[in-house]
């Protein structure tokens, strides 16, 4: 009996190590606070969404989402550790608890949201799948791709949408699939395929990496809906709420005209909606385990949704993707946040 406590302690230690991903232990928010870092699953390199520079500093649209979460939790946007993940590995990393949140231009689908053990919190970018082809082929539409060889990244919804598209139009095609985006692009650039398919935003970004970008065009059709969202592991409602409301908060801030520049001024205004939203009144922050001024910290660090978008995709960026569906609901887009009250 004397040895029992030691054995128990050992067993518990191993159990804790193995149950790393179990949400039954401390909540993710507590783990994040204890660790002093949010671990964010990121794209290993996609212009606009997330790219590390030569000093290891990450920038991009998805990266700013991670920074926003960090700002909400710690009041400091830089307490993030980025784990670069290929499309193949991302859900396994989330399932096993290697990352706290996946913000990696990941399409929200029903099976991913249910059977895969992930929960999508909200949509941060509305995209659709398209085809990139060589301009000299003279193609006008994706319907002219009958018989084409097409490069695609493995394990993406792109692979599945393409199969559906060609099947429903009774057209033939030959897919060549690669494990990483970089390999896929390289093979297309080397002439292995007639077309390269991915989400429209990614095609605009990858086009810039071709030997000669002006020789390639994106075909106009979008053959799918690709709503990108942040995903967390199932089973932790508090952490789910944090990630979801940071996302909605960014949209709500844009809707209410709160920007990086005027956030402090707006907080002390008389407008009751702004005062609730920015934590001068009410208890919205503490309800999700965050400080009162959570959204102030977020907007001060990264700006509102529109500011993030313009920084990475807007007219002044290299990509220049029109806002389209990603505009606010009252400006012809789909971005809409439930009221913060």
């Amino acid at each position, binding site marked *: 009996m004397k040895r029992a406590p030691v054995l128990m302690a050992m067993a518990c230690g191993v159990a804790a190590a193995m149950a790393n991903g179990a949400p039954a232990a401390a909540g993710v928010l507590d783990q994040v606070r204890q660790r002093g870092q949010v671990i964010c699953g990121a794209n290993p390199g996609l212009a606009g969404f997330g790219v590390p520079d030569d000093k290891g500093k990450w920038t991009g649209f998805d990266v700013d989402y991670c920074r926003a979460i960090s700002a909400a939790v710690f009041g400091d946007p830089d307490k993030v550790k980025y784990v670069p993940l290929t499309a193949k590995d991302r859900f*396994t990393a989330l399932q096993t608890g290697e990352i706290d949140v996946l913000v990696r231009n990941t399409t929200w689908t029903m099976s991913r949201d249910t*059977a895969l053990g992930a929960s999508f919190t909200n949509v941060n970018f509305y995209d659709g799948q398209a085809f990139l082809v060589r301009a000299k082929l003279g193609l006008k539409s994706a319907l002219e791709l009958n018989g084409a060889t097409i490069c695609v990244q493995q394990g993406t919804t792109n692979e599945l949408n393409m199969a559906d598209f060609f*099947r429903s139009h009774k057209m033939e095609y030959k897919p060549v699939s690669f494990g990483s985006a970089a*390999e896929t692009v390289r093979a297309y650039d080397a002439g292995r395929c007639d077309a390269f398919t991915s989400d429209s935003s990614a095609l605009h970004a990858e086009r810039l990496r071709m030997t000669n970008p002006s020789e390639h065009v994106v075909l106009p059709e979008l053959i799918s809906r690709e709503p990108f969202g942040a995903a967390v592991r199932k089973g932790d409602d508090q952490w789910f709420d944090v990630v979801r409301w940071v996302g909605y908060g960014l949209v709500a801030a844009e809707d209410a005209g709160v920007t990086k520049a005027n956030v402090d001024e707006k907080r002390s205004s008389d407008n009751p909606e702004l005062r609730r939203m920015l934590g001068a009144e009410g208890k919205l922050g503490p309800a999700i385990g965050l400080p009162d001024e959570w959204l102030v910290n977020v907007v001060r660090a990264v700006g509102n949704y529109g500011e993030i978008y313009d920084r990475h995709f807007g007219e002044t960026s290299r990509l220049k993707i029109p806002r389209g569906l990603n505009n606010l609901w009252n400006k012809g887009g789909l971005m809409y946040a439930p009221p913060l009250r």
Partner: protein
Amino acid sequence: MRAGQTVTTSGRAPRAAWWGNPAVRAFIWQALLVIAVISLFVWAGRNVAANLRASNITWGFGFLTEAANFDITGSLIPFRAGDTYARALLAGFGNTLAAALVAILIATALGFVVGVARLSRNVLVARFAAAYVEALRNTPLLLQLLVWYNVVLKSLPGPRQSIALPGGLLLNNRGLYGPWPVAAPGWSALGLGLLAALAVSIGLAVWSARRRRAGRAPLALWLLTPLVFIGLPLAAVWLTAGTVAGALPVTWPELRGFNVGGGVTLLPEFVALVLGLSLYTSAFIAEIVRSGVQAVPKGQREAGRALGLREGQILRLIVIPQALRLIIPPLAGQYLNLTKNSSLAVAIGYPDLVSIGAGPVLQNTGQALEVISLIMLIYLALSLLTALLMNWWNARMALAER
């Protein structure tokens, strides 16, 4: 405390206590270890099950019979979107097997040539072979595969500038295209004829060997075997179809739209993978062959010369049979390595078992544990099968001591 003290036998001096017996102690420790290991696994398994339940991931192999909605190009076992996940894995397995088998054949042939070349008295040949071995086995295989893939892709023209090769073959950066049979009774007859020819030629070889042992002249196999292999299939085709030329229809590759259609395609990914695997492994096999040949005592050659055998006969009848005994066991290891290394195919887009299993199958089902353990099991079975075959060959080749 009481247990062992009473153990005495037939009036001899009492034995030491049971816990002093090394065999008993060893057994107890081993039993404890086994129990510990088993309980660790059981406990880990329960933990996994609990964690899976907690994160709402369903466990089971039911996904195998569900429809998979992706396509696979150039698979040996045809696969289309809408077939089951099980079939997708099977298609991947077929591709792994095809690449591994072809690479093993090429690697063995190349390895033997290079291994013997390293022993050549011609300095140029020996040095060249040494350089080949050192360069190939001292660089990472993944790197070599990527180099080969890019060499294959970059050095060949696009489909509209295909290089026409003799025999109706077309070559471009989408693959090597060749004619392929269209199902017809003539082809079935040809297949049966070939099988019959194989059976007859084996029979002839056995008969010839029996004649030689009986002291009579062996048959002229060098003439009979080709005759059987040409005559029997042709006769079979002629008997079924009444003609030879028209009974064997084929489709020829031709440019259709974006790509070459018709005929059969050898994908550049397949070529790059087989090239990379076989060259890399041939370097190791060459060293195995060289060491095997060098290990045959010099006296054996000298004895051969003393008997008046020619150099070629010495090599064929004395040196190689003895060297093979030393070569086969490590050769088996190389075959196993090659098969497992073929999983690097994922880097160059060849749809092998790992590429399909850990790629679209795992991604679309989310059943990581099931898919990965299935893949491991398949590789294990494949390796054990290879080992079994090689052991059998080794036993046949081993010194028969009488």
